[in-house]
């Protein structure tokens, strides 16, 4: 799923204060955490209350949701009848949703309520989300026993481990930061290539580990990117 993190309410309000009638649009798609109808209703109330605190009492928010905000047909057919009087949209989807809404309704300003942070999955116990895929376009999970070195290795090397692997741990720990970006805690991180070695050994495929991998073609992973649908 696409992992998102809510923007501070102050930032959202700074986008929305110039407007009077806001449609808050949730997405029933794949964000983690999910930002569906309930989230939209919550934001609608929060924005009105927050705006009031900043002296703007005539802001009105309405909540709704769309099955998928990344599909322009679904967006247009769902929302076309809900835009009467709306002078701004707050999208709770990932960056794709925001941009799709802009494409579909170019006359209405659309603002993001979330920061899209990475493609990842959820570790349910303890609730830590990890980046799992970089969409590099050259998937090598078949050679690494299913462990991605691009997202798990800070250097993203293809012929690891490097000299910074000590005792199976990476020279670079996880850094956990607070909202201001200051590091509050570091957690030791397993070396991705060490894990890959262990996995391939278990699968009896050390031939895949031993294999030399030539440099990546960076053109494949550099933006902007598009793919033709045949």
């Amino acid at each position, binding site marked *: 799923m696409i992992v998102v993190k809510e923007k501070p309410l102050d930032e959202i309000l700074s986008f929305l204060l110039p407007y009077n009638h806001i449609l808050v649009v949730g997405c029933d798609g794949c964000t983690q955490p999910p930002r569906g109808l309930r989230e939209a209703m919550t934001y609608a109330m929060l924005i009105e209350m927050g705006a009031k605190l900043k002296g703007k009492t005539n802001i009105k928010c309405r909540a709704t949701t769309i099955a998928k905000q990344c599909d322009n047909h679904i967006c247009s057919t769902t929302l076309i009848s809900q835009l009467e009087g709306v002078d701004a949209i707050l999208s709770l989807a990932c960056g794709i949703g925001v941009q799709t809404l802009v494409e579909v309704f170019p006359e209405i300003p659309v603002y993001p309520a979330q920061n899209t942070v990475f493609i990842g999955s959820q570790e349910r116990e303890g609730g830590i989300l990890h980046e799992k895929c970089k969409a590099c376009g050259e998937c090598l999970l078949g050679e690494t026993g299913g462990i991605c070195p691009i997202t798990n290795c*800070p*250097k993203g090397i293809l*012929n690891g481990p490097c*000299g910074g692997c*000590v005792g199976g741990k990476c020279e670079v720990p996880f850094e956990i930061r607070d909202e201001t970006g200051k590091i509050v805690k570091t957690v030791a991180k397993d070396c991705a290539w060490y894990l890959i070695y262990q996995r391939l050994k278990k699968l009896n495929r050390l031939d895949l580990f031993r294999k030399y991998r*030539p*440099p990546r073609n960076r053109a494949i992973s550099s933006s902007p990117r598009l793919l033709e649908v045949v």
Partner: protein
Amino acid sequence: MVQAFSNLMRNILDGRFVYTGELEPHKSIDLSEVISWAKTLKETGRVVAANVTDNPKSVGAISSLVASYIIQRETGLETIYQLRCSDRNRLALISDLLGAAALGIRNVLALTGDYVRQGDTPTAMPVYDLDGTQLVDLIHRMVYEGKDIDGNEIHGPRPQFNIGAAANPNFKPLEVEVLKIERKAEVGAEFFQTQVVFDANVALDFLDAVKHINAAFLIGIFPPRSYAQAEYFAKYVPGVQVPAEFLENLKKISEIPDKKERRKKIDEYNIEYFSDFIKAVKKKPSCKGIHIMAVGYPEVVGPLIERAEGL
């Protein structure tokens, strides 16, 4: 077939046991201190080449390309140009390598490089367009095919380098390290300089494990200037084994009150301990030399080599 472009490689191929040193230039335009260390190494008559570090531990320093050239020119000591992938994309690497060849540098040590965030400039972008193994591949193609990694032809004469890479005898399990070394050798690594080893048994096990690989192995050693330095390795550098007896003895020496006497005793102990070490590892045919990382301590190198050679 390995060709000898450098003195280092020529000596190795001629069957001579080689000694290399390590030089670490600073974040400065002034190379005078490093040059004086290089002179000391040159004057031993036995140090065949010395490494010049490239932003070691991700602390920005003067370009290792420039330092390698100037040191070689000023002192006549052959340099081993250390080139890391942390800070340059492949175009920059190719460009620097062509420059190095034009300046007469004959040895390159290809490294992945310490992570950018660990040094004094954590805000820098980590590049890692290539990793150390891929850099070996690139250099090999330039030297032996006259092409870069994308197959573009190099105009005129091909660069002439002997290609080195790093290895770590301390890694557990050793199997992983052996597979890595095999990869690097497959794509063209001709000599390997290892991470610091204090315990001769670790070096001997390593040399046995790599004996099937067609490359020259130079075991890295670090004669400490003080007990504190040795203790630092034992406590804070995970994976490096420091024998208890070694630490004990250094500790006793560190308790000598007179500074001059203490320094003398440390030098003596280092020479005694590491010459025994060298004599032991020399016996392994895969061991072609010793890489002495006595950074800022070049005065111990000459006497150590003399003792190790039985002179």
